[in-house]
């Protein structure tokens, strides 16, 4: 029961990652893409934790932590670049 | 004295994160983490930290807990608000940027206020200049700074004033 609900949750999260990816591809401006990338980073790091649960390997939770950190730094760097202040 | 407080807080934060990351604890790991956290907190060239502004009186700690609940409630409300606006077939939005004045003086207080505004219903902080915050409001109810201040920051400010002035 719990497994079925969790699989549904992971599928929905993956679907929303895909939908946000449409915005990333469509743009139309760099800002819109970066906004989509910001949301996708959060979804992806949550999905990595879900993958850690499904595969039973704890090390992937650390991967998600580091990915969250790096993604945040990347989005802020992109935003500063677009602002012209990097 | 102020940096001493910041150093202690940095030590506790770093060691706390270390303890969470090494979850089934052993004495050796905990001790190694404590040494590393102490070395970082005792660096001679310690940059001035926003943590200096945190007040640690019992009343302030009580307000931190109350603030957490207010914040979570606002977060849930803002998500329901987003859900309503996104799923509504006509997209009921009338966005604009309004100016809001805060009474908070410390950088930490303003940072927390700006973050809280971003996560509350319909608002995103765009820019801060001194005590003025410029807020993107998805449906501008009132462009007048005084009324907008009351509507947007009123809830958080009274907690943050006690926590970090």
């Amino acid at each position: 029961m719990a497994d079925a609900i969790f699989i549904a949750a992971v599928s929905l999260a993956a679907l929303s990652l895909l939908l946000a990816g449409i915005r990333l591809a469509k743009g139309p401006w760099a800002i819109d893409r970066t906004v989509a990338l910001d949301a996708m980073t959060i979804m992806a790091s949550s999905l990595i934790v879900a993958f850690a649960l499904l595969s039973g390997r704890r090390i992937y939770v650390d991967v998600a932590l580091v990915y969250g950190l790096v993604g945040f730094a990347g989005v802020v760097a992109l935003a500063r670049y677009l602002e012209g202040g990097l | 004295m102020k940096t001493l407080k910041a150093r202690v807080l940095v030590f506790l934060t770093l060691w706390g994160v270390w303890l969470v990351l090494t979850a089934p604890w052993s004495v050796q790991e905990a001790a190694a983490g404590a040494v590393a956290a102490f070395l970082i907190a005792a660096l001679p060239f310690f940059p001035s930290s926003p943590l200096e502004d945190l007040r640690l009186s019992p009343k302030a700690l009580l307000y931190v807990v109350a603030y957490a609940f207010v914040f979570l409630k606002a977060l849930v409300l803002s998500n329901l608000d987003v859900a309503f606006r996104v799923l509504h077939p006509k997209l009921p939005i009338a966005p604009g940027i309004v100016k809001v004045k805060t009474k908070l003086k410390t950088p930490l207080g303003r940072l927390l206020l700006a973050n809280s505004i971003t996560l509350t219903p319909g608002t995103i902080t765009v820019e801060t200049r001194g005590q003025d915050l410029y807020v993107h409001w998805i449906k501008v109810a009132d462009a007048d700074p005084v009324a907008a201040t009351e509507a947007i920051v009123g809830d958080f400010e009274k907690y943050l004033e006690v926590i970090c002035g």
Partner: protein
Amino acid sequence: MAAIIGASLSLVGSLFFLLSAIGLLRMPDAFNRMQAGTKATTLGSMLFLVGIGLMRPDFLGRALLLAGFIALTNPVSSNALARAAHGYRKRLGAKLAPDALAEDDEALAAAAVRDAAAGSQAPRVQEGRHVD
């Protein structure tokens, strides 16, 4: 039992993810996309991670750490993005009915021009910022 509650929390969290993705697709300009993209992903990831933590208690500490980290950093990155977007607001086609920031920018620029005309060395307020 805890597993079912955790899985249900994850499901609610992923519904908020879906909501933010729909918001990203439906909203008309970058600012409004940010509204959906930031708020819904923050609560969504918190619920998703806490749900996973309930299903596997040995993940709970790290999941809470990641959730707290996201709650702290997500508003910061969206704030940086909003500042960048405001520099491009005309090109983005963003409709901002009252725009207090643009008004104050114009007032500052006008004051700088006046000071320069008066011969004083006015400080440059808008260093390295796109205004188109």
